[in-house]
């Protein structure tokens, strides 16, 4: 590659890194569906099984960062090192890939600009989440592939898998396409590299299950808890979107794709046209798989998975631009730069995190409770947030009563953990709450006062000035069964 082109690649990467760092959230936040951040922050303090299905490399890196930093510095370091930096590298890789495939400088610059201007990608690059790192490794794998580096392709795919298991189907598709060319023998050794780099790290999760770690998100090393942990979430949400939700989902997908890709659609249209070689099949299959993943997923927040498809889409955009006149490249680049500017105002995670500080308010209010208080909450942002505060301040001895843990038979080790660690007994949320009240423990409900969270109907509340916590004075008498078996109940 010519020296000036290398410097441009470096400049593109540095520019993207500066842009993302500037806009990144400088405090703990839940914006842009980053409510899992509580989990990752807990893992920066404790060796503990995180949310399904593990993310062993990500929690190891978070733990490493947590070893050198503390409090908000950890939040900032993880956001910048594991979100902003990988995303900036991804932007640079898109530039290098398009340059390699088209040998046209302006197409490469335009493609990386489109990705930089994509609001969806920006939001996952400026908050504390695992997607930016995963996408970076997948894009790196593609870069190595087109440069004929098979082992490095497998290694990068493996590292991506060790962060997010959703890379497994992508890797399988890519291997199938590569092997289709009749080069099975060439890929047998890289396949071993992939298994070692991608699948072997998940043994860390099994080790953590085996060890006496807090049973907050998974049980011990038994077949039942492994089945529930590794397959439970996927079984519940993947491919389970009701047909009645489809119009809304498609509308939402259209909105976020239109606002993210701007004027790049004509180039995309040309890029998708035949002929298809193996590299292009890899890109298209990644896009189709991620679209299917989001469009059929019951969880409305899985648009984050579309970020996996965006680098592929922008590379295809570059391929399309190479077939068009240079004027198209200028128009697409200009459109992307306008989006970069607009996003810096309206999708500024730093500003948004300060405007909507639920996570930090929750943190402060938890810290204001008396030591040994119990908190009842639904599984998700509030429970993961509490786990983080528990790991940051174990001296406060906060007690997590998570709904619906214990009310279902799929997590029996949680009941054992509650009894051994906190001395609370009960087979469900209400029994645990009553036991805590009987023992004179201060019990609070965490979460906003929304009719969506029907578990609130089972409690009586006292007056409180707090925003995220309300003191529970007793049970209301509403049976738990009516909440558990009500359609549409969020838990």
């Amino acid at each position: 590659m010519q020296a000036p082109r290398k410097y441009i690649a470096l400049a593109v990467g540095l520019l993207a890194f500066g842009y993302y760092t500037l806009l990144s959230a400088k405090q703990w936040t839940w914006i842009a569906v980053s409510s899992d951040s509580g989990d990752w922050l807990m893992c920066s303090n404790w060796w503990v099984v995180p949310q399904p299905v593990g993310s062993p490399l990500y929690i190891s890196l978070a733990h490493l960062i947590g070893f050198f930093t503390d409090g908000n510095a950890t939040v900032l370091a993880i956001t910048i090192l594991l979100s902003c930096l990988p995303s900036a590298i991804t932007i640079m890789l898109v530039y290098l890939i398009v340059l390699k495939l088209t040998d046209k400088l302006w197409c490469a610059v335009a493609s990386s600009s489109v990705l930089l201007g994509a609001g969806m990608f920006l939001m996952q690059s400026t908050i504390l989440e695992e997607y930016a790192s995963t996408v970076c490794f997948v894009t790196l794998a593609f870069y190595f592939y087109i440069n004929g580096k098979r082992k490095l392709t497998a290694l990068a795919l493996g590292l991506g898998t060790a962060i997010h298991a959703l890379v497994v189907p992508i890797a399988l598709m890519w291997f199938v396409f590569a092997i289709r060319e009749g080069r099975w023998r060439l890929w047998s050794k890289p396949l071993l590299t992939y298994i070692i780099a991608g699948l072997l790290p998940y043994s860390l999760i099994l080790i953590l299950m085996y060890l006496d770690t807090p049973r907050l998100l998974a049980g011990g090393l038994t077949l039942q808890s492994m089945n529930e942990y590794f397959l439970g979430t996927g079984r519940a949400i993947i491919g389970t979107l009701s047909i009645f939700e489809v119009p809304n989902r498609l509308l939402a997908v259209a909105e976020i794709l239109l606002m993210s890709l701007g004027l790049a659609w004509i180039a995309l249209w040309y890029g998708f046209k035949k002929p298809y070689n193996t590299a292009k099949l890899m890109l298209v299959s990644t896009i189709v798989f991620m679209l299917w993943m989001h469009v059929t997923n019951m969880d409305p927040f899985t648009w984050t998975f579309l970020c996996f498809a965006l680098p592929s889409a922008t590379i295809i955009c570059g391929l399309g631009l190479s077939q068009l006149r240079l004027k198209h490249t200028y128009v697409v680049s200009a459109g992307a730069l306008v989006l970069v500017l607009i996003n810096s105002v309206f999708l500024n995670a730093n500003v948004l995190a300060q405007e909507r500080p639920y996570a930090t308010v929750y943190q402060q209010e938890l810290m204001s409770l008396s030591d040994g208080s119990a908190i009842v909450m639904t599984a998700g942002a509030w429970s993961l947030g509490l786990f983080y505060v528990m790991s940051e301040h174990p001296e406060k001895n906060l007690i997590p009563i998570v709904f619906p843990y214990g009310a279902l038979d799929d997590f029996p080790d949680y009941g054992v953990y509650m009894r051994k660690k906190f001395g609370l007994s009960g087979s469900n949320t209400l029994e645990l709450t009553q036991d805590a009240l009987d023992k004179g423990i201060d019990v609070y409900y965490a979460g906003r006062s929304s009719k969506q969270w029907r578990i609130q109907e089972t409690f009586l509340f006292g007056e409180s000035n707090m925003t995220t916590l309300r003191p529970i004075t007793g049970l209301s008498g509403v049976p738990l069964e009516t909440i558990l078996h009500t359609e549409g109940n969020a838990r």
Partner: protein
Amino acid sequence: MTKKHVLTYILLAIACGASYPYGREILIQQEPSGYITISNFTLNYLLLFVLAGAISPWLSSKLSLLKRFKKSTASGIVMLTLVSTLLIILTLVGLEMRWS
């Protein structure tokens, strides 16, 4: 660049601008809101039917036994057999727990 391209770029700019406020709200949300409809009739099943429907004419043309039937009938049978078999397999391996 043709006039058609220019017009398309203008329309894309308008679509991008119009969808921006709605897309932004989706992107910056903090936690789930609203109710989720739970149903056994999922989009995935519909896609499976579409997929089976798309490949069944090709498949039926490959089966010599089915030549005596009209292609549409054969396609229907192949499609239903494929989907039913897939659903049974999914249920048996426990991937679709809610199907009953």
